[in-house]
């Protein structure tokens, strides 16, 4: 403790700084508001227009009749179709994606080939979804591979192609977060590499991998264009994955231009359903990640 | 090369300075004690006794300083040897101080105008000179870490031991003279104190060798065996 002179007082914030601070804060709030407005509007419109369809009888329990007159029917086949196609797409994309991510983090690392793979994955995330649809259309649909033209599994393939880069990217990030000290510890115990991956790396990264995959699934659920060219449209509830199927995005696409109000309302109801499904998936993903976090 | 552990090195140097200063104190005490014996100066002897407090105080200071250094700095290698040696040396200094006090205490006891024996007195004076020289050289050896000088002290100490035995024999000789007998016995005691001072100086020299080489050898034994070989 020194000095006979009094200590220098801490200076006050100048008026100019205060003003600048409030201007900045104000503009940030305005920007946030501008960004939120369309989001809120969308949700509002969805609920406003779709809730009437939800409450109509048989919305979830009947298939669309496809007839122009009379009872339009519900969207049961669309829901089931979406679930079937997306499930198949996930079955393809998720294991494949995680495997590629494992290659990149555990084996490839900085190797030139691994970097090449990463580059292509990045490119694929930017490819418009319609391109995947067209690709499958030309390769599988036109050639009537598997016996039929349009088919549910071909749609699933297109969606898988779409989901794959997302799974790879998010999985790679999560796998890189696994501390290398854990791998070192397992190596020092004398474990072979594949066992280390299976018993140490994957369990540690599990919640992050699940979250990433669920987000990819949520994305895949909502895509219309790929399904348009690969699955086309049907109204009946069918388990035959090798043929035409209904799906929520296509149901919306078909119904929204219909002159009948009831059918348009059904389209809104389907849209609301789709958003609800995506929301549920997001909530599940968040719950899982919170339940077992790594940090 | 950058200077690290600056405070530690300073502290260690300071401790060494205090020990060397202690040796200076011993030399001055020895000088005055010997003078008081030669001139039967009782007042001077009393001063020697009183001033021993300074040496005792120095001992406590150095002891405390060493404990503090060991606790705080964990010295190793040469530093550790120096610390151990300084502890040993300050004890020797304290003992040498006590020997000077013992000499001084004998002065009033040996009478005021006692008859003196010239031979004994000469021998005592000679012993005193040698002892003083040994202490001075021990201080030098410690200060400059001079191993040869340290080892030479053993040779000098042999001379003191010889004089000690000579004084004893002489005291026995003059023991027949009743007037001289008591004085003679007191002189034996003085001689013994001086011999002890010499031994302590040799111990300090041993510590010097230890600091420099890391080896600890009893030099007194070497000196004694060499002497007995000479006969």
């Amino acid at each position, binding site marked *: 403790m020194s000095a006979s002179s009094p200590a220098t007082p801490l200076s006050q914030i100048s008026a100019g700084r205060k003003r600048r601070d409030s201007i900045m804060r104000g503009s940030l709030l305005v920007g946030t508001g501008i960004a939120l407005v369309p989001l809120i509007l969308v949700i509002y419109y969805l609920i406003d227009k779709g809730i009437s369809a939800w409450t109509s009888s048989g919305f979830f329990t009947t298939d669309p009749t496809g007839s122009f007159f009379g009872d339009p029917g519900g969207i049961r086949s669309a829901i089931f179709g979406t679930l079937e196609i997306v499930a198949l797409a996930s079955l393809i994309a998720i294991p494949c994606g995680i495997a590629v991510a494992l290659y990149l983090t555990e084996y490839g690392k900085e190797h030139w080939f691994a970097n090449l793979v990463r580059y292509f994955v990045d490119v694929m995330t930017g490819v418009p979804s319609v391109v995947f649809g067209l690709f499958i259309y030309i390769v599988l649909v036109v050639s009537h591979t598997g016996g039929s033209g349009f088919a549910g599994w071909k749609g699933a393939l297109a969606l898988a192609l779409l989901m794959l880069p997302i799974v790879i990217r998010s999985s790679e990030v999560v796998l890189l977060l696994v501390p290398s000290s854990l791998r*070192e510890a397992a190596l*020092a115990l*004398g474990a072979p590499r594949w066992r280390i991956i299976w*018993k*140490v790396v994957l369990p*540690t990264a599990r919640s992050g991998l699940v979250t990433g995959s669920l987000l990819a699934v949520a994305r895949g659920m909502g895509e219309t264009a790929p399904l348009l060219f690969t699955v086309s449209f049907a109204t009946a509830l069918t388990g035959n994955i090798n043929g035409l199927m209904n799906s929520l995005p296509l149901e919306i696409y078909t119904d929204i231009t219909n002159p009948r109000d009831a059918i348009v309302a059904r389209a809104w109801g389907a849209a609301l359903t789709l958003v609800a499904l995506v929301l549920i998936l997001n909530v599940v993903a968040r719950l899982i990640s919170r339940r077992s976090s790594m940090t | 090369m950058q200077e690290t552990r600056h405070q*530690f090195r300073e502290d260690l140097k300071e401790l060494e300075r205090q020990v060397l200063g202690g040796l200076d104190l011993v030399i001055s005490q020895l000088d005055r004690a010997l003078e008081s014996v030669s001139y039967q100066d009782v007042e001077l002897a009393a001063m020697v006794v009183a001033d021993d407090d300074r040496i005792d105080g120095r001992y406590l200071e150095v002891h405390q300083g060493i404990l503090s250094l060991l606790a705080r700095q964990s010295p190793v*290698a040469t530093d550790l040897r120096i610390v151990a040696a300084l502890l040993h040396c300050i004890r020797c200094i304290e003992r040498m101080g006590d020997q000077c006090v013992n000499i001084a205490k004998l002065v009033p006891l040996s009478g005021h105008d006692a008859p003196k024996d010239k031979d004994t007195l000469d021998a005592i004076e000679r012993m005193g000179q040698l002892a003083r020289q040994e202490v001075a050289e021990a201080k030098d050896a410690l200060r400059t870490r001079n191993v040869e000088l340290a080892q030479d002290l053993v040779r000098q100490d042999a001379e003191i031991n010889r004089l000690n035995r000579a004084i004893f024999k002489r005291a026995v000789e003059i023991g027949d003279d009743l007037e001289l007998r008591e004085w003679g016995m007191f002189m034996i005691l003085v001689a013994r104190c001086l011999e002890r001072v010499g031994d302590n100086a040799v111990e300090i020299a041993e510590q010097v060798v230890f600091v420099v080489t890391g080896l600890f050898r009893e030099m007194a034994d070497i000196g004694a065996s060499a002497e007995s070989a000479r006969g």
Partner: protein
Amino acid sequence: MIPPETTSKESKQVSAAEDQSQQTEAAPDLSAMGERRQGHGIKVRDLHAYYGSVHAVRGIDIDFPANEVTAIIGPSGCGKSTMVRCINRMHEEIPGARSEGKVTLDELDVYGPDVDVTSVRRLIGMVFQKPNPFPTMSIFDNVAAGLRLTGTKSDNLRERVHRALRAVGLWGEVKNRLDSPGIGLSGGQQQRLCIARAVAVEPEVILMDEPASALDPIATLKVEELIDELKARYTIIIVTHNMQQAARVAKSTVFMLDGEVVEHDETTKLFTRPSDERTERYVTGKFG
């Protein structure tokens, strides 16, 4: 055929032994690991190690005697960790790293052409600076991890895990919560857990790379006590930047500088009367 009386006497003996063991649960109990085994030493000959073009270890020759603790000290970057990692072939896991030279565990050449690297690491265990228990595994699973990850078929897995925990003196503290997560323990306990994990695999040699530098003083002392116990069964090589630790724990000490061995001697001698000027300067803190 065992007569019934003997069995009940046996069970009484067992419970008496358990009572006794409860008293000493806190102390490391290596007798839990079974009878004493003949130890195995490591010899390093002309070892060179590189990170790309950087020559980190330059021609090292050291003998690590069996059942002894040898410490390796030296300033940062002198190559001590690198050298130790060459012993259990962890060095080659780093991209761009390579090594040359000979490392033998008794007669076994660690770098032999037909040698499976994972079997080397089972014989030469390692404990790291920062405790790294597997976060998704319980205490039990962590200790068992070594056995499970190496695919060791073990019908007495539980027993081996319990023994390892006893051996490191952790049994008393965790016996009632073997299923709780390994990362729930304190830093010192986690490090002892990692040591138990290494010990459960029953290696011959244990390498320790600054095992206590991330721990508080009490935990450090416990780990050091444990090392003292462990040397009865294993050969231990410990890298440390803490000279006092080397002095407390090791019988002999190696001083390394710039990738080379400067001095290798009995610990007491190295710290009271080092032969090399550079060792003297390092241990007295004149550089480093």
